[in-house]
């Protein structure tokens, strides 16, 4: 998730920036990633990336052996995929910050970096939290896919348990309840975060 947020922030800035090539780069990234299923990307990174690197190395006359650990492959792929989704959330959030705020900051003599750090970043969270919450929920459920590349997370362990006990329904049902519990906790956390982020906003009576 941390990777996803960083990537999302970076790509959102690229999309909003005036430099065309950066915008196109970010656009391609989000279009491609959002059009391909997570499972295909996970398998591509886990199985495909090592051979791709080896083949390229062999092309330059190097003989190396590369292996990606399931943990690393999983974290990076998930981060990479949800970075694309977070990009859209952040883009909307940055656009939602009032233009007058930025103009006022510039009038006070702040440079672009200072404006971003002091004005844009603190204010855009308020708009980004609901969207990020959604991304987080989808992400939690996507982690179940990593079990396909044998990482011993919740789903993979359930698999093993189901095979040993010959009670697949009981095991998978328990796993699903655990996921539900995580979801409920995330919902509560999201509500708290939203309240906190909105504490400076005047309510209309």
């Amino acid at each position: 998730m941390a990777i996803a947020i960083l990537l999302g922030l970076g790509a959102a800035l690229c999309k909003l920036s005036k430099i065309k090539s950066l915008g196109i780069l970010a656009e391609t990234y989000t279009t491609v990633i959002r059009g391909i299923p997570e499972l295909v990307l996970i398998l591509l990174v886990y199985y495909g990336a090592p051979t791709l690197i080896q083949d390229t190395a062999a092309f330059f006359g190097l003989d190396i052996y590369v292996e990606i650990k399931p943990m690393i492959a999983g974290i990076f792929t998930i981060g990479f995929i949800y970075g694309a989704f977070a990009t859209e959330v952040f883009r909307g959030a940055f656009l939602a910050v009032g233009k007058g705020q930025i103009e006022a900051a510039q009038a006070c003599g702040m440079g672009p970096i200072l404006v971003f750090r002091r004005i844009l970043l603190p204010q855009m969270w308020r708009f980004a939290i609901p969207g990020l919450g959604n991304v987080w929920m989808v992400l939690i459920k996507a982690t179940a896919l990593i079990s396909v590349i044998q990482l011993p997370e919740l789903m993979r362990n359930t698999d093993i348990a189901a095979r040993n006990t010959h009670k697949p329904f009981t095991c998978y049902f328990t796993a699903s309840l655990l996921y539900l519990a995580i979801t409920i906790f995330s919902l509560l956390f999201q509500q708290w975060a939203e309240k906190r982020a909105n504490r400076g906003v005047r309510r209309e009576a």
Partner: protein
Amino acid sequence: MDNNIIIETLPRFLSGALLTLEITSLSVILGFLLAIPLAIMRVSKSPFINIPAYCFNFYFRGTPLLVQLFLIYYGSGQFQSFLSDIGLWQFFREAYFCAILSLTLNTAAYSSEIFRGGILGVPFGELEAARACGMSGPLLYRRIIMPAALRIAWPAYTNEVVFLLQASSLVSIITLMDITGVARVVSARSFAFYELFITAGVLYLILVYGLIFVFKRIEKRITAHLSPDVMIR
């Protein structure tokens, strides 16, 4: 990069693409039929009607699709004797049936929430006008609420269908040979991992953007009476 293997497996990829489309469209249609009554249940004021639908949606939206798929495909084995007694075992034995069932239930939960938003978004004045004309119950739903709600919900529903198309790649885990399934089996034999998975990715990209194109066309058609600046995307 080994191009020959891509060309060689292309026919298999195409039949995989057909299976992907078949599973997706079947689940979309069945899920749609299930989502409409669920959405109507969700807007009901009576807790006895509302709460069961809420629980169904909460469960299917709160757990990963992979767990649901395994629960139905592998989990049904625990009730083998019971299921064969009532004559359903032959369905649950088939990976194809289990894939359709879990995708249908999953998309029904997500799209019923989308339709619920659509139903709540129908302007109250339209309801009042219809009531004043003497419409009630089913007629009101069929003639006034559903068409308007569908129009409001369409953009979000497009997203859901795209997600379902991508989610259908999971059925490769329970041995079905869709696009992902073909890529996995052939690459495990030939070690041409990235070539095949990139081909699979490109195929999905084509399907997804083709689907979005079709849905946008439908959207234009059903909202043709609204001027473009009214439409919120």
